[in-house]
């Protein structure tokens, strides 16, 4: 098991390497650089200062040298230094990672907490109006552009009802978390509900469910002991894969709700051409994705005795 984890972690290396190369090239050929003006800049740097700044940042060196330099740092776990901010990328990300993880996990919780029961109900009542209703409801969630949903929620829950603060981190307090997490989670919930429904229907058609029924077990026990676990096995992968895109979506949510996470940092840094920060954010988001999927794979071991990683 430990060996397996080590093996998987080692497999991250080429992935991270490829992505870093890919992103490095893309980002470095973006038009404009950190010295050019971007949103909210007071005044244009004069040519000389801009050159100066480039030299300070090492932007005057050829691309492959910069990449080599970057990789050297990366191997040591150093993501470099921000072009515009007075901090190392490691520090910047360290501060911003927690809020993103918070909001993503909360969204995941909402999505799973609502999605799985919805999917179950829908599958067990397959073909009834409850099925149709839950599914249309679930699909609706995934059909609203997120920023629109966020603004509508803000309008309703902050302005009209005054229940929730419209924005901000508030030190990570629950009231601040609810709206962003819900906005983020609702689309994901639809996906989980749909996957769950399909999985339950599939499991229900399995022979061992018939066996369980033939033993005289009640429907409740059959569902709890035999359907649930096997359903989980089918939907875990989807949960893991989608968690990645969930983290990607925080880009929107964080901007909207002034949530101090890595997503808004990423957007800002792309627009400011703060390449080390962008690069760092992308790698960290991917790292989160990889780790989440590793955790998912390990969860299989717990749930599914057929899977054994050595």
């Amino acid at each position: 098991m430990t060996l397996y984890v080590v093996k998987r972690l080692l497999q991250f290396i080429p992935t991270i390497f490829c992505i870093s190369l890919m992103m490095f090239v893309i980002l470095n050929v973006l038009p404009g650089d950190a010295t050019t003006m971007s949103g909210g800049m007071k005044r244009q740097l004069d040519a000389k200062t801009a050159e100066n700044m480039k030299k300070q940042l090492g932007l005057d060196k050829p691309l492959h040298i910069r990449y080599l330099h970057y990789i050297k740092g990366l191997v040591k776990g150093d993501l470099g230094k921000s072009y515009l901010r007075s901090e190392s990328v490691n520090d910047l990300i360290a501060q911003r990672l927690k809020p993103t993880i918070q909001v993503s996990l909360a969204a995941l919780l909402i999505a799973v907490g609502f999605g799985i029961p919805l999917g179950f109900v829908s599958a067990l009542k397959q073909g009834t109006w409850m099925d149709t209703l839950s599914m249309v409801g679930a699909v609706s969630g995934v059909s609203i552009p997120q920023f629109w949903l966020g603004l509508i929620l803000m309008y309703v829950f902050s302005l009209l009802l005054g229940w929730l603060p419209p924005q901000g981190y508030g030190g990570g307090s629950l009231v601040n978390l609810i709206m962003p997490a819900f906005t983020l989670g609702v689309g994901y919930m639809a996906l989980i509900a749909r996957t769950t429904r399909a999985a339950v229907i599939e499991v229900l058609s399995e022979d061992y469910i018939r066996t369980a029924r033939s033993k005289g077990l009640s429907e409740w026990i059959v569902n709890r002991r035999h359907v649930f676990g096997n359903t989980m096995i089918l939907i875990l992968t989807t949960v893991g894969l989608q968690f990645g895109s969930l983290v990607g979506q925080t880009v929107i949510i964080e901007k909207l709700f002034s949530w101090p996470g890595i997503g808004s940092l990423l957007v800002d840094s792309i627009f400011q051409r703060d390449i080390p920060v962008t690069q760092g954010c992308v790698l960290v988001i991917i790292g989160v994705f990889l780790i989440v999927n590793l955790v998912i794979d390990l969860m299989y071991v717990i749930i599914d005795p057929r899977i054994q990683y050595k």
Partner: protein
Amino acid sequence: MNILEIKNLKTQFHVLDGVAHAVNNVSLSMEKGEVLGVVGESGSGKSVTALSLMGLVRPPGRVVSGEILFDGTDLRTLSEKQMQDVRGNRISMIFQEPMTSLNPLLKIRDQISEMVMRHNSISKKDSYDYCVEMLGKVQIPYPEKRAKEYPHQLSGGMRQRIMIAMALSCNPEILIADEPTTALDVTIQAQVIDLMLNLKEQYDTGILMITHDLGVIAEIAQKVVVMYAGQVVETGTVYEIFDNPKHPYTKALLDSVPKLGKRSKAERKRLREIKGIVPDLFTLGAHCNFYERCPDADEACKRIIPDLIEYENGSSVRCIKFQGRNA
């Protein structure tokens, strides 16, 4: 005394293509402790009959009419809750696919004990002990160890033994075995059949043996029911059926099987075949279901739906051409 008596059972499947008459007026009976073989090809309705009996027909299937008298009670009148008390406890069932019939996520002992605990007031620990005992009875080596294993760690033959152990663990009056050996290799099949016969003696359980394999029937059954297209076409003792089949289908079926060691150079060419294919269960006409394939059929067969004629106690045949015992 018949422990089980099925009268005019009808089970239909309402699907998009129409209504499939999977079980069409089936009647059969079974005595306590006897092995009743139900033989038929795929689509003959033998498995659906078993599921109907267990109350396990799922939508779109539905038991439409008929009586299932088990120990004098019509199972169809029982509530789902009462039926659950019967299932596994008084009637239990094993299935064709040992590879998929056990929940892959639960240990063997949990799968057995959940059933034992459901039907008996027994502690978990005792049920585990009992489980090990049952595994020993079905001749599983190292039962203590195996009980703690998961299905995937066992071979197909083992799993079928576990299914048998499970099915017998509540001392049922009837064990329904739906093609229990079809998915197994011949040498393993021999082991399992041997085991079932031994246990039957030990537990005095009646076995409803469903199979398409005439060889298995010949070996295990005392009485035989032959099914075709959702109907019973012939019943009788195993000797009657194999020595002197009455129904043209039964006859043809027996003739069409290649028999080991019976072949000579000349015989090689001619296996007797039954022409045509099994009729479509959606479009059964008002005639004998077998008439299209029957070598003896004539115009009359085309017009009449034959009844099941009982010509001797427990023996009957569904053919208008049948003229009595020695015809």
